[in-house]
């Protein structure tokens, strides 16, 4: 009889131990609520593992990529993101990647692997032709073509004197064009490459 009571006591003790051991993780999980993340505003840094789940598993949240970024474009999910908390992202609307490779070199894990410049795949730029100034004949611009670090591999004018930008397949999605676009509704954005480059015609 007493051995049964002892077993029960140990079971209760073990359960209490397990529950109290899980508390810190539960608390930290509840402190970073799961919010809907807009992928257009949250690009992964260059060289990131393509599969989102693999990236989260590989990233240890040390913040080194952010600490070496010269334009300080790498931000972190610091107060939200559930499983993605402390993982890096780049919001090209605020500050875009300059493709300097420093974050890939410094990352201790394989989360950001060193990639050659033209093999980087953060996404591909997409232009909304119903809002872009030259495409709707509201003047000349060419800011996106002027800033592009990859030149005519990534973005070109439709005709040499028409200033209507067309994205090429060589675009790596660094987002510098998004950063410089003067249009208030930003008719250029970075989408995932697999989604293609068909404009969605959403003017906000």
């Amino acid at each position: 009889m007493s051995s049964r009571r002892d077993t029960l006591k140990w079971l209760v003790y073990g359960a209490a131990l397990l529950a109290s051991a899980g508390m810190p993780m539960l608390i930290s999980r509840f402190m970073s609520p799961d919010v809907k993340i807009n992928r257009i505003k949250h690009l992964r840094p260059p060289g990131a593992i393509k599969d989102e789940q693999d990236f989260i598993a590989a990233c240890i949240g040390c913040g080194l990529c952010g600490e070496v970024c010269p334009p300080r474009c790498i931000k972190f999910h610091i107060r939200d993101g559930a499983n993605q908390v402390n993982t890096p992202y780049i919001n090209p609307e605020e500050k875009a990647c300059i493709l300097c490779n420093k974050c890939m070199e410094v990352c201790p894990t394989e989360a950001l692997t060193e990639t050659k410049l033209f093999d980087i795949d953060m996404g591909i730029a997409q232009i909304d032709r119903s809002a872009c100034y030259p495409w709707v004949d509201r003047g000349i611009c060419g800011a996106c073509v002027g800033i592009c670090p990859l030149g005519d591999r990534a973005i070109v004018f439709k005709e040499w004197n028409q200033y209507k930008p067309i994205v090429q397949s060589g675009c790596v999605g660094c987002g510098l064009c998004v950063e410089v676009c003067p249009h208030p509704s930003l008719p250029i954005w970075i989408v995932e490459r697999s989604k293609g480059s068909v404009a969605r015609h959403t003017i906000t």
Partner: protein
Amino acid sequence: MNKPFFLWKHLNKLRWLTLITVFAMLITIPYLHVYQTYLAAHAYDLLQPDEKQIYDTMEMLTTPFVDDPEEDLDFIKGNTWSGTFGGFQLSDPLSIVGQISASLKVYWPFILTGLLPFILTAVFGRFFCGWICPATLLYELNTNFAAILRRVGLHVGNKRYDRRLKYVVLGLGVLVSVVTGTVVFATIYPPALVGREIYYAVALGGFGSGAVFFMLTFLLDLLIARRGFCRYICPGGALYSLIGRFRLFRIKRVVESCNDCAKCTSICEFGLDPLKDSFGQECNNCTACIAICPVDAMTFYVSLQDIGPQGPGHAGPKYKRQQQELADGQSDNE
């Protein structure tokens, strides 16, 4: 008399110096990075007045040491969770355990960054907790604060729990990492939190949720148990204790000169009892007990195992009474 080497008594000061240096570096590195971003932007005139202040201060501090600050200041980056020092990368062993259990893959370049900490821990035991951990500095100041509160007469928690809880936290953390595929230790491990949150506050404009969690651990230490997080919950401490179980450098009590004053027991941050020779794998070689001992009865020695209980100190009243009783018993027998 068996006197300890005179330098051991001053190791505690060196330890405080190390802790403060590490913490100061963790604050300086984000500012250096901010300075580097200003340099990279080549637009000093566009900076705000407070940003100009950061620029000027950092320029003043670094000009004697670097030629090209934009590149050369990359020499030292990161925090104690994972950092790079002159191209040599170092990572916390816990980050490696967490990452392997999250991704279920073995990535050797990353594992090798934890080799040096692993070897040092195997030799010196849980030294990281006492000598380097940036959270330790804050926690020890918190302990001193609690002592002041106690002197004023306020209630400060001093409960004791099962020390094995932290091993359960470690095991459960590995399990959660495997199931969810995230490095869950990164969000609950205080040194990682402190380093990261300082960076967030300095360079990214505000503390994250980790700072709130850290404040909760602070309150736990203050209101429930002294150094409660380190002693009962910290998964890193658990891992270091396991690695350093058969460490070489240990602290022992010289029983011949000990006078049972129990100052070592009250100073021990981890609630160990040097007076009863119970150090075990939890001792972090912080040397506070060596520094406080009034009769120089604590010393370092090299061994794979602790010496067992040695009984009361020979200079103390209890030992003398025992001897007296023994002598009396012998004389009675005669």
